[in-house]
């Protein structure tokens, strides 16, 4: 059974096997297919139209399925690899071991935002950014630029306390747990972390930065934590909602998986800590 661990607890060997597997997916072209899929959904999910991957109730089950697919691709390269998660309430500065050269590499240089160290630096010639929204082919970051701050544990706890999963109009204007976690409303958790990292992470092609997976693995864990705190709160909406993925509707692009199928993560993996 796959166990997803806090990235701060990984051994040097676990870090190397994870980054090696990512680089192998990149080499074969498989990695970029994930970037393309994500960008296509982020550009087509709209508040007043069809919405699946973002700004909608299925934000959480969609990304759970997306991460599972990526994790399975990693495991096809190295069966020992699991997705780690980044608890950005704790490891909240550019000095965290997450950003060391033996793992994801650090922030970008001032001149052009280019990441200059670690396995994903352009200079290593193993991680060219090819699915992109602008002309630059190198990984960029601007960690905490402009004095931005990552969410605090207290802000996370306030969102986890929300009892209702999601509410009409089921989009970026909604009240409830999902939209506060996604960040279009309130203290802003998930969206703010994308902005804090900067570079490609701020764009629709955000999976170009491998930290995308660690960020979303933590968002996914927060969903599991929320379920544990509110066992009586179901996924909503339950049915008959135009433009929105109801509990038993299938989700694009897979068309064979529903939010109901994704509610219990323990069928696929567990976490290193109990929820």
């Amino acid at each position, binding site marked *: 059974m796959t166990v997803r661990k806090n990235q701060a607890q990984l051994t040097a060997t676990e870090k190397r096997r994870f980054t090696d597997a990512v680089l192998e997916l990149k080499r074969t072209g498989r990695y970029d297919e994930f970037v393309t899929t994500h960008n296509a959904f982020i550009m*087509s999910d*709209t508040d*007043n139209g069809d919405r699946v991957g973002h700004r909608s109730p299925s934000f959480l089950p969609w990304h759970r399925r997306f991460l599972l697919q990526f994790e399975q691709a990693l495991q096809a390269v190295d069966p020992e690899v699991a997705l780690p998660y980044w608890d950005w309430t704790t490891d909240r500065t550019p000095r965290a071991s997450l950003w060391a050269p033996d793992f994801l590499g650090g922030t970008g240089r001032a001149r052009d935002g280019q990441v200059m160290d670690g396995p994903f630096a352009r200079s290593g010639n193993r991680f060219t950014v090819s699915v992109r*929204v602008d002309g630059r082919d190198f990984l960029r970051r601007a960690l905490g630029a402009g004095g931005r701050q990552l969410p605090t544990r207290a802000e996370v706890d306030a969102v986890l306390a929300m009892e209702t999963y999601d509410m009409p*109009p089921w989009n*970026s204007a909604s009240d409830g747990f999902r939209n506060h976690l996604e960040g279009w409303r309130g203290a802003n958790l998930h969206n703010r972390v994308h*902005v804090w990292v900067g570079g490609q992470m*701020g764009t*629709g092609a*955000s999976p170009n930065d491998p930290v995308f997976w660690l960020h979303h693995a933590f968002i996914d864990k927060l969903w599991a934590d929320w379920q544990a705190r509110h066992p009586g709160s179901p996924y909503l909406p339950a049915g008959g909602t135009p433009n929105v993925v109801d509990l038993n509707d299938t989700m694009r692009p897979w068309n064979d998986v529903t939010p109901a199928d994704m509610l219990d993560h323990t069928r696929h993996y567990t976490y290193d800590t109990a929820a």
Partner: protein
Amino acid sequence: MTTLTRRRALGVAASAAAGLAAGRALTTSDRAVAAPAHRSTGPDTFDEVYQGRRIQGAPSHTGGHHGHGAHGDGYAVRIDGEELHLMRNADGTWISVINHYEPLATPRAVARAAVRELQGATLVPLAPPLA
């Protein structure tokens, strides 16, 4: 005295050239204010040079680009002539594919944020959606 880099020199040249465009835009903008708008909601047209690059925004009733439909909700933004994928949120704020997780108040603010983020890089033309 700093030495002009090639990029900076090009930027200066672009600014000088586009100053004329900005002048025209001002006239257009004034006219838009003077005449009653067709739609009471929605942002005005703009056309300016920002950090050496021409940014333009205008209502777009043609559906914008390659089948993405009206994601900009009838509004299109260009940077040096290339369309920036734009989206309007339910609360009236805007985002672009360059800054997708940080809503801003107007398409002009989104265009300026994209110019800052691009640091001189060109936009990749919008790709058709996946089948």
